[in-house]
Each structure stands twice: as C-alpha cells, then as structure tokens.
C-alpha cells in the first residue's frame, strides 16, 4: 500500500493531478453546496455544456480553450442570472441554451477537423495531463472565486432560503444571484479540467447532495461537501493509477457511491428517528 503510494507520487504528472484535483474539489464542494441548496443544478449542468462551445470556439480562434470556457460560461451565467428565479421559464431557457451550446460546439468541431483527441479531453477530462502552469491558473482562479464566495455567502444563503423575506430586508437578491452564477461558471470551468464537461456533475453535485442528505446543519454540511468532493477526486485518481482505468470514471463512480450511501444512511436515520 505505502509502496504503491510512494511509487504513484514519484511521478510528476500524478503529483500534478493530485494538486489540481484538490484545488478544484474544494471550489466545487463549496459552490456546488449552494448550487444544490438553491436547486440550480440544472443551470450548473447547462454551464458545463456551454463550456464545450467555449473551448471549441477558442481553439478555432487560436486562444487557449480554458480561456474560452471561462469567458463564455461567465457570460451565459450572467444571462441566466438576469433571467430571474421564475423556475418554469428559467429551466426551459436554460435547456435551450444547453442544446444550442452543444450544437455550436459540434459546428466548431466540424471546422476544426484535427480535433478528435482534444474533444475527448474536453468531454471527459484528462487530469493526468495537467501541467504546473495550469495548476497555477487553477489555484489563482479558485482563490479569487472562494474569496468572492465568502463575500456573498451570507446574503446568498438568506436569499436562497427565503427570497421573499430577503427582498424585504433589502438584500440585493439579483446582484447576489447573478454573482453566484458567475462563480458557478468559474467552478464549472475548473471542474472541466479535471473530469471534463460531461462529468462536472460528479464533482459539483454528487458530493454536496450527499452532504446535504447527511447533515441538516449549514456549516457541517458545507464542510462535509468539501471533504467528500476532495476524497472523491483523490480516490478517483488513485484508483485510476491502480486499475489503469480512466480517472473520470472513478471520480463519477465514487461520487455516485457517496450519494447512494448518503441516501441509504439518511433513510436509516429517519427510521431510527421515527422509532
């Protein structure tokens, strides 16, 4: 076990993978916690699809895909926030954006034919291919995002739990919701570097959803969400090393297991409570 661990850590790309995924897991655990709390996971899902168009478009224009993802996802996040909270119309609009983003991404792929391998990376991630510079970028972006998250967390929590009262208490509900979706866009952009756009849910939704099943307290749940996301990411990479299966598979598998386990444990807690 220890031998295997040391052997694993001897590789540069493994150390990079662990560092990058830890950074992203913390951000995903925090942002995802609010995303689940606000029942906006569909918006997160759509933003991950937007990142596909952003990345492919960026490659066509000759700029780094990660920059393209950040710019486009942020813009769409702002647009979604402006749509407001009316759930029904919001989900339709988000769904339309989601579909169009994929279509656009397909078109960009069509124009850029040498794209096939890069497309797989975009869709499913390649955490083992991350270099030092990317880690620096991820860390800086995560730091800024977490700082912004800390700034809006209090009004965001209030507006998430009781928007009608928050409005009456002069909480800038619109500003807070739009800012939050920008942070979701940034977190999605980071998560795509680890698990790819199709699997962002594994890091951003499964751990926080499991955490909320396991704890009804805000801070405990938030902490648990970060820990689960972190374990999910590191566990997935370690298992990928051992089995030689893709890390993205293991990260999704662990996320799903965590969610299922939380679901079952919650069921047990309930029956004990009732008894």
């Amino acid at each position, binding site marked *: 076990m220890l031998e295997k661990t040391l052997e694993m850590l001897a590789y540069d790309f493994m150390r990079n993978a662990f560092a990058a995924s830890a950074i992203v897991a913390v951000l995903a655990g925090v942002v995802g916690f609010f995303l689940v*709390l606000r*029942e906006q996971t569909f918006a997160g899902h759509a933003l991950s699809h937007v990142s596909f168009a952003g990345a492919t478009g960026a490659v066509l224009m000759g700029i780094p895909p990660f920059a393209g993802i950040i710019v486009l996802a942020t813009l769409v996040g702002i647009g979604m926030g402006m749509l407001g*909270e009316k759930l029904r119309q919001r989900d339709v609009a988000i769904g339309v954006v989601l579909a169009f983003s994929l279509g656009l991404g397909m078109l960009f792929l069509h124009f850029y034919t040498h794209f096939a391998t890069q497309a797989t990376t975009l869709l499913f991630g390649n955490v083992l291919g991350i270099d030092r510079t990317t880690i620096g970028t991820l860390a800086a972006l995560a730091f800024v995002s977490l700082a912004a998250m*800390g*700034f*809006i*967390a*209090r*009004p965001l*929590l*209030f*507006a*998430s*739990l*009781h*928007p*009608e*009262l*928050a*409005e*009456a*208490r*002069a*909480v800038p509900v619109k500003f807070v919701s739009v800012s939050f979706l920008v942070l979701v866009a940034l977190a999605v952009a980071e998560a795509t570097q680890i698990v790819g756009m199709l699997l962002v849910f594994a890091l951003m939704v499964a751990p926080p959803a499991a955490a*909320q*099943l396991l704890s*009804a*307290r*805000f*801070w405990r*749940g938030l902490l648990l969400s970060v820990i689960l996301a972190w374990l999910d990411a590191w566990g997935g990479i370690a298992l990928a090393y051992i089995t030689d299966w893709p890390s993205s598979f293991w990260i999704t598998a662990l996320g799903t297991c965590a969610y299922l386990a939380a679901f079952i444990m919650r069921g047990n807690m309930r029956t004990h409570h009732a008894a």
Partner: protein
Amino acid sequence: MSNVIVCSDLTLGFGPRVVLAGVNLAVAEGEFIGVLGPNGSGKTTLMRAILGLLPPRSGSILVFGKPPPRGNPAIGYLPQLRSRLAGLSLTGRDFIAAAYGGHRFGLPLFGRAAEAAVDRALALVGAEDLAARPLAALSGGEQQRLLLAQALLGRPRLLLLDEPLISLDPPHQAAVVALVRRLQKELGFTVLFSAHELNPLLHAIDRVLYLGGGHAALGTVDEVITPAVLSRLYRTEIEVIRTHGHIFVMAGGHEVEHEAHRHAIGHSDA
C-alpha cells in the same frame, strides 16, 4: 399614542393596474389590525408598500413618521409566498439564523449574538424543539411557527403577517392568533395580520382593515363589518349575519370569505 402607519390619499398599482386608490388611514402604536378582503384586493400589495418595496403611485405612506426605506429593521415580516420552504433539508434553526444580519456581506458565521437572537425568537413562539429538525420534516403549522419566530428576529416594532393562517386547521389557526395576540400584549408591537376569514381573528383584533374594489375601510368590527361598508367594497349586495359569536359575510346566499379562502388554497398549491 403615536401613529405607526399613516396613509394619505395613497394609490398603489402595477403598470396600468390600480390596486388601491385614495386610501386614507392611520394605525396607532400597539394596535392589532386584522387585514381582510377578497383575493386580489391588495392585502399583500399594501404590506409591500409598508415595507418600502412598492413606491406609492400617488399620495403618501408614512411608517414611523417617514416614507418607508427598504429593509426597515423595525418591521418584522412573514411573507405570504415562501417559495423555497417546502423542500429544505436544513434545520429550522439555520433557516432562521440565515435571516439574522442576512443583508450584510461576508460569511454567515452565526456568532454568539445571532445564536442569542435566534434562541430568543424560538422561545417566544415555543419552537425550541422544532428548530433542530429539518424544515422539510415539519408540518405546515410547525413551519408557520418557525416563520413567525423569523419575523420576530431583531425585535420589530411592527409585525406584518401575510396570511399566517393559510392551510392551517381551525384549532391551529386559533393557536397562531392567540400566540400573536399574547406576544403583542407582552412586547407591545403593532400587528397587521392578513387573513381570508374574519372569525378566527374576531376576538384578538383591535380593529379591522377591510380591502376591496380598490378601497379600504378601517374601523372596529362593528363599524366595518356592516352591509353598507362591505357592499361598497365588494360592489355587490352584502348581508352580514351574526350567530354564536361568529360573523358571516354573505353575498347572494354564499359566504364570500369561504369562497375566497378555497380560492387562495388552490392558488398557493399551483
């Protein structure tokens, strides 16, 4: 005694739609006002104007002697619409605490002052035990009590309760009314309490504010709940029947409040 709310020739509306026109009224400090009227008569709209969320179309509204600023800490509010409440897995305690200083930026650290304020509010409504459970696991009446605690956070001098009786059965309705009345006597705040039926409020309220047809009538039950006043508000022939300490407001043989109530429940489910 000074006036808490003064409306002078107040007109409220949305776009081309006028909801209340030329309303004149004054609510004195420490009064318990029952706010009644059919669906769409403007009960919620008036409360939103008092909260400073809706500027007057014309005329003026003064709350504590000033045009109301948005986010007035002296006002406690229990909104009619609580869109997020149903599925929340957080505890009632965290739900209430989130409102404490929730307008300020930074982390929601729930420090000692917040804990003390939440404890006090929970004790006032007797919901200390409820608050440890997830909101989604509470009954409608239990959630209502936590919402009342949240409205009491920050020691308001004016409490706006918008339909706190909705979807409660008669015994729970009576309990909520009695609770608010007791707290109001103890703490001396002013209450505006909107409802679809007069009877649960009958013995608690000092005066009734009846809205309808764009108009408002404020007075004692005997002054306002009369065929003459209500016929003007409902714009139809109204009969008032009093039996066994209950009052029934009838139009063409139907009880109007009852109809309105059914309506409202269907509405909130949609």
